[in-house]
């Protein structure tokens, strides 16, 4: 397999008379397939991959050790206390769930909005969603005092006729996050089937043939299969779209439904969703930049893709900034002294350092993206996105911890200090996340080949009327190009 070396090219122009190239180097279908598949089919991945995987695995092991220690000793190994009974665990949970949102947004909402550029990034953004939700789901499970009874959170019929308490937002969380997890997983997997079939067909070893053969679910690329596939994909996109909004709204209910000043705020659902998308896109950019270098996908995940995401980061960052401002305004405007105190305390109290870290990272730093130079500089956007990731973690920390640390009775105010276990557990989830991501990069189609092909100039979409995803002119095995064209056009 020969390497296709395509020089990086600026395709970020905004000249409306010229349709920008989304995939550079004008590859044909075969070349595209080749460039995606070789990531997985190369006899050995780049050396960096091994280095990254071993570091990630080490942190994953740390995560397991931390969890084992936590289960052995009790939740007291964390810094939580009374009044701050939720600490890093819940902040991390919200952080990871938020990260996941970008994937679903890209694959579902941008799909429905016919944003063609999404095809280059949607596959690994969705993978990121799955892995982030896995990391998130760990926390609610282990943060409870009696982990061995975590299953009581599910409405399992039992002889005592005991049910969960349906007024509790934590229970809504259980439903919201598990639904989200299931739909995201289905969406990801269904979207991957044609590409898995490609992998299967190109497989050189018996193991790959069997494994991808099973995973491809017998995909043959017939018109009927494409038809069903497109329907299913559309339906799942429709299902996933409200979830993008609902999951983080419900996560925000954990706070908004309580009566703690700083939590009890009606702005939380939209504010959380905007924040989630903000942090999710920042994470996609953070992952995309090394991935496109590492696996030589610069012509598929182009500068234009990155710039588009940076624009979204700028917009959602402004939304988040607006929410921060409105919170302060309402705190003052409501005339509620405890509410006002909580916000002044955030900005000026013992946690001011965390608050201003959050403001700088989330509101100030993304403002650089007003400048095209900043939006299109790889290194610069990477740094900004790292800051956004940090800032969004601090946002969750600020919300969870500062509100609890000083609520109604000054006698019970406290100051939360994390322990080493808190820090290492969080670091461990990053290890898990990157381990899963690195394995994904190596063993699954990192780019949605079938979808990308549909937007190649060669697919001829630019020349005629077309609508959306259903039109595939890809390299479909066992089928003549013309037949595929007709089959796809029927949708």
């Amino acid at each position, binding site marked *: 397999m020969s390497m296709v070396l395509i020089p990086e090219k600026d395709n970020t122009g905004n000249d409306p008379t010229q349709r920008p190239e989304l995939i550079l180097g004008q590859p044909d279908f075969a070349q595209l397939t080749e460039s995606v598949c070789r990531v997985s089919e190369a006899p050995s991945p780049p050396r960096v991959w091994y280095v990254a995987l071993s570091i990630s695995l080490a942190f994953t092991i740390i995560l397991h050790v931390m969890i084992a220690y936590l289960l052995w000793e009790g939740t007291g190994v964390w810094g939580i206390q009374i009044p701050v009974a939720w600490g890093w665990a819940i902040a991390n949970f919200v952080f990871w769930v938020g990260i996941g949102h970008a994937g679903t947004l890209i694959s579902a909402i941008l799909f429905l909005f016919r944003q063609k550029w999404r095809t280059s990034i949607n596959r690994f953004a969705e993978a990121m969603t799955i892995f982030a939700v896995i990391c998130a789901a760990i926390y609610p499970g282990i943060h409870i005092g009696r982990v061995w009874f975590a299953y009581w959170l599910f409405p399992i019929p039992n002889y005592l006729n005991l049910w969960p308490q349906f007024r509790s937002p934590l229970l809504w969380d259980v439903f919201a996050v598990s639904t989200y997890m299931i739909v995201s997983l289905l969406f990801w997997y269904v979207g991957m089937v044609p590409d898995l079939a490609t992998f299967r067909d190109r497989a050189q070893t018996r193991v790959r043939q069997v494994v991808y053969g099973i995973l491809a679910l017998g995909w043959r690329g017939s018109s009927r299969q494409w038809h069903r596939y497109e329907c299913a994909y559309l339906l799942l996109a429709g299902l996933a779209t409200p979830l993008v909004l609902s999951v983080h709204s419900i996560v925000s209910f954990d706070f908004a439904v309580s009566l703690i000043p700083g939590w009890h705020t009606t702005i939380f659902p939209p504010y959380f969703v905007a924040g989630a998308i903000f942090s999710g896109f920042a994470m996609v950019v953070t992952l995309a930049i090394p991935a496109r270098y590492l696996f030589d996908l610069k012509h598929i995940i182009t500068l234009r893709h990155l710039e588009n995401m940076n624009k979204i980061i700028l917009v959602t960052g402004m939304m988040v900034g607006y929410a921060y401002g409105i919170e302060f305004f309402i705190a003052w405007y409501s005339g509620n002294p405890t509410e006002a105190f909580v916000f002044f305390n955030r900005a000026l109290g013992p946690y001011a350092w965390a608050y201003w870290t959050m403001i700088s990272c989330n509101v100030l730093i993304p403002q650089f993206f007003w400048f095209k130079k900043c939006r299109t500089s790889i290194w610069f956007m990477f740094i900004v996105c790292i800051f956004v990731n940090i800032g969004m973690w601090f946002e969750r920390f600020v919300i969870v911890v500062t509100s609890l640390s000083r609520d109604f009775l000054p006698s019970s105010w406290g*100051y939360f*200090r994390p322990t080493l276990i808190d820090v290492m557990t969080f670091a461990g989830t990053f290890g898990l996340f990157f381990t899963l991501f690195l394995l994904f990069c190596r063993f699954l189609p990192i780019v949605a080949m079938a979808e990308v092909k549909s937007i190649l100039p060669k697919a001829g979409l630019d020349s005629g009327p077309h609508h959306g995803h259903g039109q595939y002119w890809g390299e479909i095995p066992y089928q003549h190009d013309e037949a595929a064209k007709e089959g796809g056009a029927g949708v």
Partner: protein
Amino acid sequence: MPSIDQTENGRNYWRSLQELALTPEFLAELGPEFAAGTDLPPAGTSRRRFLQVMAASVGLAGLTGCRWPKEKIFPYANRPDNRTPGTPVQFATSMDLDGVARGLLATSYDGRPIKIDGNNLHPDSLGATDPSAEASVLELYDPDRSRFPMEAAGGQTFNRTWDEFSTFARSHLAEIRGLQGSGLAFLVESSSSPSWAGLKQKALAAFPQAKWCEYEPVNSDNARQGIHLALGQACRPHFTFSEARVIVALDADLFSGHPAAIRHAREFVASHDPDAPEMSRLYSIESVYSLTGAMADHRFPTPASHVLPVLCRLALELARQGLNSPLLTQAVLDALKPWSETKIETPYLEALAKDILASPARCVICAGDRQPPLAHALAALLNSALGNSGTLVKYTPEADPSHPGSIASITALVEEMNAGRVQTLVLVGGNPLYNAPADLAFGEALKKVSTSIQLSLFVNETTSACKWHVPMAHYLESWGDGQALDGTLCARQPLIHPLYEGKSPIEFLSLLVEDQPRSGYDIVRGTVLPLLPGNDKELAWREFLNNGVLSGTATDPVQATPQAEAVVSSLKSAQPPSTPLSAQNLELIFCRHPSVHDGRFANNGWLQELPEFMTKLTWDNAALVAPATAAELGIAHGEVAALKYQGGELSAPVYIMPGQAPASVALFLGYGRTAAGRVGNGVGFDSYTLRTSSAPDFGSGLTLEGTGARHIFACTQDHHAIDTIGASGRAERVGALIREADLSEYREHKDFASHRVHSPHAVPLWQPYEYNDNRWGMAIDLQKCIGCNACVVSCQAENNIPVVGKEQVFRQREMHWLRLDRYFHGEPDSPEIAHQPVACVHCENAPCEQVCPAGATVHDHDGLNVMVYNRCIGTRYCSNNCPYKVRRFNFFHYHVHYTEMEKMVFNPEVTVRSRGVMEKCTYCTQRIQHAKIVAKNERRPITDGEIRTACQTACPTEAIVFGDLNDPESRVAQLHQNSRSYRMLEELNVGPRTAHLARVRNPNPELVEKIVHEHGSHS
């Protein structure tokens, strides 16, 4: 994070503790600070030994429980009368502390004492208790208690049996008897027991040359000498406050530590009733903020050495304003003159004198035990001059008029020991090696004694220097008697067979001095039977044991008039303080610790973890320094300071205490133990190293220098150490949480409390519950709460609340279900204190219930907000959503390290919670159930007052009332209707079941003007 060294206007005092703690040095210090034993698996009783003890205690349960001890073991073939297994039984008993018997009721559950309450027949208990008595039941089961007689020989210690000891002791003493007892000395703790006094007489008769020394580090020597000076005879004063209108406390903590503290508090709150036609007024002139100071309507922070000059000035002012009394002769006034020239800040004396003279006979002046004898004498003189002697102040003769006082007594003994005139020393209780005045070097003197025998509950600091050690029986294991402060005879009866082969002091003394050693039972009967009235002595004896006291045995007060001449001559010979106190010449004050007392309770986890009311410190003592003095010295809160005083040196962490008198540094005694046991070892620092026999109470000449090192305090509340924004937020809302008014405002607006906060009309989200049966509720009267912490320990004992240790308290994981919130307001140099007990208020519309995903906290049909521990999975969401933050979480398995012996203290009616479970106040649901069952069996409704929660039973002032809100006649329902009643955080629409009753202060109108004029308005 700002570092501690940065100071704003020199007021580093306002910094938050947490900020300090973030510095790495601090966290590094945390490790070794952690009290040993709270996290380590203790070396407990072996299984075999435990089974033996359990077998013995179960077997003896019938005997110990009943009042007719037959010292044999019988199987439980026939159930003794009046005993049902599983039904708790209460026995009246008493505990000796500082030589006064405290009347108690001990609850025994199948032969195990598990709870201590007050005996309502006892004159100074009135049914209530204090923390030390409450916690004494934990001491009983302390696995560190001494278990065997021990003999030190050739640098080694050997375990012996009692037989071996008694063979040795009796032969040894037989030799001494031949020498008329020369070379023999007894060093004993104060005791009020008539049996003990009888045995003492026998001992002194058998050994006429023997020395008898009585030593208590915390004592009332000063009062004793002062009253002796004034009256010419050894008497103890008794104050009555119910009829008082003006009470002046001179460095006197009337409500804590005093043997009659409970009665004082009960009487004071009765007189301090805003609804009475006349409300009493309490003035406190003191250096260390005490409970009395917190209750005072006016408190003047005054260094301890300036209290006597203030009293002299007050006497002169009273005379100037026309107090006519034959006692205030010209000679007295002349003698007082030099004192009035001392330069002291007493701007309020005129108003105080005027207030006193408005009704002189209803004013009482009380001097504290820390004050010199002269202050007591002068106070006695003034009391007589005011005409209250015999009404508000009474004097009864001391039981042992020959006792020279603790300090004099031990000084004399050490002299004898140093002179080699003591060959055999018998120590009964006490711990002189730890707590004798430092200048006496008791340890050195003890080395000169060839044979020393110690009877002690614990192997303590003194044990290692003694030749023989024998274990003492706990008061709950032994027969005894005692006298209340007023002389009333009290009973002490065992509830359990001695767990560790101990003998009570009377049995021990009997073994040493009597030809035929008698059992404790025989000794006590021998003493008490002749004192019992009537012919049927057996019946009277049973009645005595049943009641715990013998009524009518109080000592009659003496009619004594103070002699002015004696006071004059002492005044003339005494010197007013000449060199003024300053930051370079500080005053040092030694204080009894309200929890661990003189250090004897240092191994008691409940008391170590009990937040001291003023500082909220647990597991620690500190050098209390006034904010202004600290600023002048440049010392920060929590900084370790080097104290130099009378040649001694000590390093102690500084706690900047608002309201502490300027240039006056207070040290709590009782910490820094090295041989207390696994709980008390290495906690805090030892203040006794600076305490000398010449100035055991206070003295000047202290210098204090910051070392820059930091110390971590584990406080349960960090009030004054806080950032600016926090302080302003707190100041804004405390007035709404703890509602207070002055009497004048209260008289105009009876319902001021309900108007302090504007509560918008709120509509419940859920349909309200209906209660057709009972609707339990509580009312806490802040007017009455003195902040004594008795309720906190009582709750801990009743509800099996674990002790978590210093490190966990520092991490804000203390488990107390009930806490006392304490806030300062006003100037930091002279603030007032507002405080309130807070436990779960059992919200009608409970926010915790709505967020629990497992349904582990629910409403029951009586409206209790109950925790279902078995259902709790520990999401802690309920705690987050609790606006009162009264929920406590088991972050670890806090009970797992309890030894089998310690587990015997558990109340079997209350679940012991495992790790990962939330808990909180249940309104003592087990007591409610018990009362319900009893009432149902008797086919009657529950009567008002039948159910008393643990906090309620302990409360000295009956500030806590529990009952049925559905019964309009119940006390609690009426208190809920009281005009002072309010519900904390009512505006959240959670509907708390516990109402607080607002506090009304009665400041002197003239002084209010003065204060407003000088300091601006008090916010």
